[in-house]
Each structure stands twice: as structure tokens, then as C-alpha cells.
């Protein structure tokens, strides 16, 4: 049988991450977080139609991974506050625990599936009692209240709720990088330092904070702001640069929001919004 080349379909972020990590283990002798993060993000890019809820989860995990990667790239950990270090391990361990749980149930599912396949090979006797006895059997519908029939009908006929209507999921993640850029520009007074922590203090969610961070990076890339960090893991200080003010590259910004763009940015936050 020829080796089938198939496009992997990942059902969830854990699925994907598990696959990437375990594949790395096979392909390379040394597992590299950097590679995993890159692979994860490029996989995200490849996925075109993402379900809203799935996208959120994918993105949160991407954010966690990027965070882990970023921390690993930092040269020294000497000045790390204890709290931060603990936090770092907590996040990692949490992710690890979830991955292990996911893997456990994946394997359990395979075992159940094998059992069903085995059980399917036997057919139970369903004929029931033969004639004189059959008419003796109490009728299953006897003493069944019509309301039970109604309940069954409602259960069977209930339309599948439209997954996009779920407001709770949409509300907290209404964030686009483009909007965040506009918002940031409005927030940044000229020639004055602003702390990044202050900028995200009122962020309604982790995701919103991430989006604002991406907006800062975008502004930095375009030369609109300057970023300084005085200590490892310290606060970021942003300063708006004069000349960058009118030079915002609209096309680059559009990439964040436009699905049809030929070069999608690595993390498409707007996928969450649509």
C-alpha cells in the first residue's frame, strides 16, 4: 500500500500541540521549543476556516507558547522575581497537565473504539418471545404519559443552536490589532514615556492584552514608537516617536484585519473576531 499523504486535520489546540511535540521527538533528537512554537504558529496560519471557539483556544495556547519561548530566549534569569518564576512554571505545568489529560483520553477513546468494533461482530438476539407469549408482554407504551413523548420530540427536533450566537464567547475577545493600534496612538502622549502595564491594566481579558502587545510591536516595527525595558521581565516603557506619526503603513496594518491579504501575519487575531 502506498504511503498516503494526507493533510492532517487537528480538532483542537491540544491535538495539534501533542502532534507537534511528539512528532518532534521522532524527527529530531532534541525537542526544541522554538521549533514547536514556530510549527504551531505556521499551522495556525495554514488553518483557514477556524471555528470561533476553537480559534480562541488555539490563540491562547499560541500565546502561552510564545510566552514560554520568549522567556527562554532571555539571557539570564538572575533577576527574576520569585513570583514570576513560579507563574512561569505554573503556566507550563498547567499546559503540560492538560496535554497529558488530553492524551490519556485520546488513547482511552481508541480502546473504546476497538471494543465497539469487536462488539459489532456479534448481533444480539432481538426477536423476543414467539407468539402466544408475545401478546402477553405488557406494551411498552402502556402507562407512558404523552408528555414523555413530547419531551422526546423536543429532544429530537431541537435545532442545533447556532454556534456563532454565543455572546459570552464573542464579547471578551472583541479585539483587533488594527483597532488596538488606533487606540494606542490615541493613548500615547507625544514624547512622554508610558508604561505598558498601565496600557493593559484596563484590558478586559488576557487576549485583549495580547492584542495590545501585538499592536505595540506593530507600531515599533513601523517606527512609530520606541520601546525600552530596563530590567529583565520588567515593565516596557513606550515612547511615541514624532516622525512616525504620519507614516503609519496602512497596508501593513490591513494585514491584521484582512483575510484576503496575500501575506498573512503570523498570528491572526482577527480570526477570532469574525
Amino acid at each position, binding site marked *: 500500500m502506498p504511503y498516503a499523504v494526507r493533510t492532517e486535520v487537528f480538532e483542537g489546540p491540544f*491535538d495539534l500541540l501533542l502532534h507537534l511535540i511528539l512528532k518532534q*521527538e521522532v524527527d529530531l533528537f532534541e525537542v526544541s521549543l522554538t521549533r514547536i512554537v514556530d510549527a504551531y504558529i505556521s499551522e495556525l496560519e495554514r488553518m483557514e476556516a477556524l471555528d470561533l471557539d476553537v480559534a480562541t483556544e488555539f490563540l491562547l495556547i499560541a500565546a502561552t507558547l510564545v510566552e514560554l519561548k520568549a522567556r527562554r530566549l532571555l539571557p539570564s534569569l538572575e533577576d527574576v522575581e520569585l513570583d514570576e518564576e513560579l507563574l512561569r512554571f505554573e503556566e507550563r505545568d498547567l499546559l503540560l497537565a492538560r496535554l497529558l489529560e488530553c*492524551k490519556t483520553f485520546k488513547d482511552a477513546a481508541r480502546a473504546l473504539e476497538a471494543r465497539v468494533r469487536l462488539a459489532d461482530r456479534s*448481533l444480539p438476539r432481538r426477536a423476543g*418471545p414467539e407468539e402466544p407469549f408475545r401478546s*402477553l408482554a405488557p406494551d411498552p*407504551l402502556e402507562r407512558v404519559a404523552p408528555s414523555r413523548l413530547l419531551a422526546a420530540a423536543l*429532544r429530537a427536533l431541537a435545532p442545533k443552536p447556532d454556534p456563532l450566537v454565543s455572546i459570552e464567547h464573542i464579547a471578551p475577545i472583541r479585539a483587533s490589532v488594527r483597532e488596538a493600534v488606533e487606540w494606542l496612538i490615541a493613548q500615547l502622549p507625544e514624547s512622554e514615556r508610558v508604561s505598558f502595564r498601565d496600557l493593559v491594566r484596563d484590558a478586559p481579558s488576557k487576549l485583549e492584552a495580547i492584542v495590545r502587545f501585538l499592536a505595540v510591536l506593530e507600531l515599533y516595527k513601523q517606527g512609530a514608537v520606541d520601546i525600552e525595558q530596563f530590567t529583565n521581565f520588567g515593565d516596557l516603557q513606550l515612547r511615541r516617536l514624532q516622525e512616525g506619526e504620519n507614516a503609519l503603513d496602512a497596508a501593513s496594518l490591513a494585514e491584521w484585519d484582512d483575510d484576503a491579504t496575500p501575506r498573512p501575519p503570523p498570528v491572526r487575531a482577527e480570526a477570532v473576531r469574525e
Partner: protein
Amino acid sequence: MYDDPVGDATSALRDHEARRIIEAVVLAATDPVEPSLLAQLVELPVARIEELCAELAEEYFASGRGFVLVRIAGGYRYQTHPELAPYVERFVLEGQHARLSGPAFETLAIVAYKQPISRGQISAIRGVDVESVLRTLLQRGYVEEVGRDPGPGNAVLYGTTREFLERLGLDSLASLPPLGDFVPGPEVVESLERGLRVSDQPVPSSDEPGPATG
């Protein structure tokens, strides 16, 4: 009949296998199984099938099994040994908590509320093929054919029976508790069908090389 010992051994093996197949098929069947059908499955002449069935019946009888293999209504079926009738009767009367399976009950509910309805339409709503469930309902006499779809295919349409109404203590279908507002019309059922298909699809079949297992 033959002097060839090898041939004898082979045919003994075939007979044994044929008997097993007959046992399995007759056990799983809900109606008497015609010998011609068994002949096809086993690939032996009908006459030989009849012989094998007679042998089996004799074997059950001789070893005092609680069931017998009988020829009835042109086919073979298992039934309980007449001597054990008092026990079977007691069991059927009080023991067997008769119940309709969940899927059967839901299917019945769909037929009750959406009749006349075709098997395909019921399957679309339930997301699974309902043939065997529908057969049970037909056998029970809760559901019957009420017509044919005038559209292409002329699908059989089903509805509930008088007996169904009587069992539920209802005068007419109009006395069924109303479903309320959010019952989907046929067009929604159709999109629901699509929705179900989609929701079942995005999933790689489990045979696909998923994440490498350790």
C-alpha cells in the same frame, strides 16, 4: 457415501461450519429464515440445508435444550421449548420490563409529530439511519405506512396507528401535547441535516495517522 477419507474430513468441516452459520443467522433474525436464503449464505443446496436444520433440531431436542429449532411460515426460527412455557409466560408477564429503547422512542416521537414522514426525513433529523428502529415500531404496530411521497423516489411515508393513540390514551393526534413555537419546519430540518453532516465531518477518521502515540 464416499470412500475418500480426506473428502469426508473436508465435508465434515463444511457441515460443522454450515451448522454454525445457520445457528448464528437464525438466532439474529427476527423472522423465520427461509432455507433458500440460508442456502445462499452457506453455499450449499437447499436440500442439504434442510437436512442440516433437521439435524440441529434433533440435536437440541436430544440434549434437552430449553429452545427448539422449528420450521414455521416457510422458514426456520428458534423458539422456547413448549415444556418451559410456564416459565416463559411468567417471565414475559412480570419479568421483562418492556421498554422502548431511547432511539426507538425518539423516532416514534418524530413520526407522531411530523407525520406523514419518510424514513430519509427521520434519519435526517436523528442523524442516524433509522431502518431497524422503524422496523421495530412497525412490528409493534405503533407506526404504519400511510402513503407515498409524490416527489421523485416516491418514498414511503409513515404515520402513527390507532393502536398508538389508544396506548397513549389519546383520542386523536390533535390531543398530543403541542410542540410549541420552536419546531423547525421542513426547510430547517433540511439545513439541520446539512448541519449534522458537517458537524460529523470535520473529523479525521480515527484510522488517520493522528498524533503519534508513544
